Structure formats: C-alpha cells, structure tokens
C-alpha cells in the first residue's frame, strides 16, 4: 500500500506541506507582482495592474 500515490492515498500529513507551500507562493507572487509599490516594480507592472483590477496608484 505504501507505493500507492495520488490523491486517493495522500494522507493529511503528506498534503499539509505542499498545500502550505503552494498557498504561500501564491500569496507572495500576487502580493509582490500585484501590490508591491517599489518604483521600478510599479512601473513595470503598471499596465497589468490596471488591466487586472489591482489598485495601482
């Protein structure tokens, strides 16, 4: 049974780490690319922020 993989056999402990990592990566990327107010970052992402509905400036 230990060789079984995939969602059906994934225990909670095996899921917690990957889910936390994915959530943190998602929040981090969206926070920096969508909301970071550093000048260069803001200018580079300006059009995308407007087009995606993020508060821009």
């Amino acid at each position, binding site marked *: 049974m230990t*060789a*079984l*993989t*995939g*969602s*059906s*056999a*994934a*225990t909670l*402990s*095996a*899921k917690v*780490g*990957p*889910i*936390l*990592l*994915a*959530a943190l*990566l*998602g*929040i*981090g*990327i*969206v926070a920096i*690319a*969508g*909301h970071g*107010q550093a000048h260069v970052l803001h200018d*580079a*992402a300006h*059009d*995308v922020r*407007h*087009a*995606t*509905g*993020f*508060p*821009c*400036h």
Partner: protein
Amino acid sequence: MPRMTYVMRRVSPATDMYMKLISSALFAGGAAGLLAGLLQLLFVQPVLLHAELYEVGTLVHFGAGASAPANPAVPVLELTRDGLSLLFNILIYCGYGFLLVAAMALAEGRSTVPNGRTGIVWGIAGFVVVQMLPAFSLAPEVPGVAAGDVYDRQVWWGLTVASAAVALWLIAFSKGWTSWAAAAVLLFAPHLYGAPEPDYFAGTAPPEVAALFAARSLGSGFFAWSVLGCVIGFLWARAEKASQEQAPV
C-alpha cells in the same frame, strides 16, 4: 526484477504532491498568463492607451479638443512595455495557479477529482473571488481615474478576496443554513462597509472609455481564469490516471 526496481524508485506521496502542485500551477499559470497577456494587448491595452491620451491632456473630455476623433489610432505594439505586460501576466497567473492548486488540494476528498471540465468551474470560482467580487465595489481603474488612498484600497482588496474565498468555500463544501448565512455575510459585508473612495471625482477619461475598460478587464480575467482552472484540472486528471496505472496490483 525490473518491476521491483521501479517500485523502489517511486517517490513518497508527499514528494509526489509537491511535484503535482508546483508543476500544474506553473504550467497552467504560464498558459493562462500568456492568454491573459494576449487578451490584454488585443482588447484592454488600446482602451488603456486611449484613456492615457485624456490623462496627459492630448484629448480633452468636453474640452476644446472635443472635435478630435473619439477613437484615435494608438500604437499597435510597444516592445518593452508590452513585453513587460506579458511577463507580469504570466507571473501573476502563476501566483493565481498556486492559490488555485492549494484550494483544490485542500478540497480533495470533499470533491470529485478535478478534470479539464470541472477545472473550469474551479477557475471561474477563482475569478469570482479574486477579480469579480473586489470589482463589485472597486471597479478596474482606467488610468487617470480618481481613487482613494492606494494602501487603503490594497488592504480592502486583500480582505475582500479573503472573505470571498471563505464564503465560496462554505457555499461549496458546507451544508446547512448557518454556513450559508455566514457565506452571505462574508460575501456582502465588504461591500456594505464600502471600498475606499476619493474625496472628489476628477477622472479625465470619458465614462464610455472607463466603462469599456472595466468590462474588458473583467472579461479578459474570466477567460484567463477559466483556462487556468481547465489546464490544472486536465493535468490532475492525467496525473491521477497515471498513478492508478502505475500502482502495483
């Protein structure tokens, strides 16, 4: 003994899960980001550039320049500017992809194993949470628009997205009137409280341009999020099928 060797080399369920989440988020994020970038360049950017002509004063709404054509030609492609837009779309949709796979993995066991079709439902739910509900009170802003303090708007945006995510989760996976009532409160509370507003309205672009911009922004998001969910669902169904076929009998 080749089969035995193969079984020994199988990765642990946790490693398998890390690979599944990260690879599907990046692959689907890349595809959806590319589509979002193309939709932006084709449909949103011309409206944005048009609004900027009002922002810098080249065109004047109700002004002396009102006799200028309402829809002047705008540059088709600006390499650096549009390249950055494409890059940031891909980056942001990879971020959305990570959030979506985290939610889908959390729902495993409560929901059927996603495939390409049910993945679209997940994608649309993501669109509702991250773009449609914030836009319900904080419409996508055309350049030159008057708006409240940017930090206040970002905080409101973050809280609205978080409460919308919990609300949709309750609607999808909880039963009973208490959960549904809580979901309704979470959905509407940020909008009853209200998004930060400017002290006075001083937007330079005509309402026609601003409305088209908001509609195009939301429409593009809808298509891109649908593809994001679809690709993640497709990859998960494929991974699930592969793991079942490879499992020892």
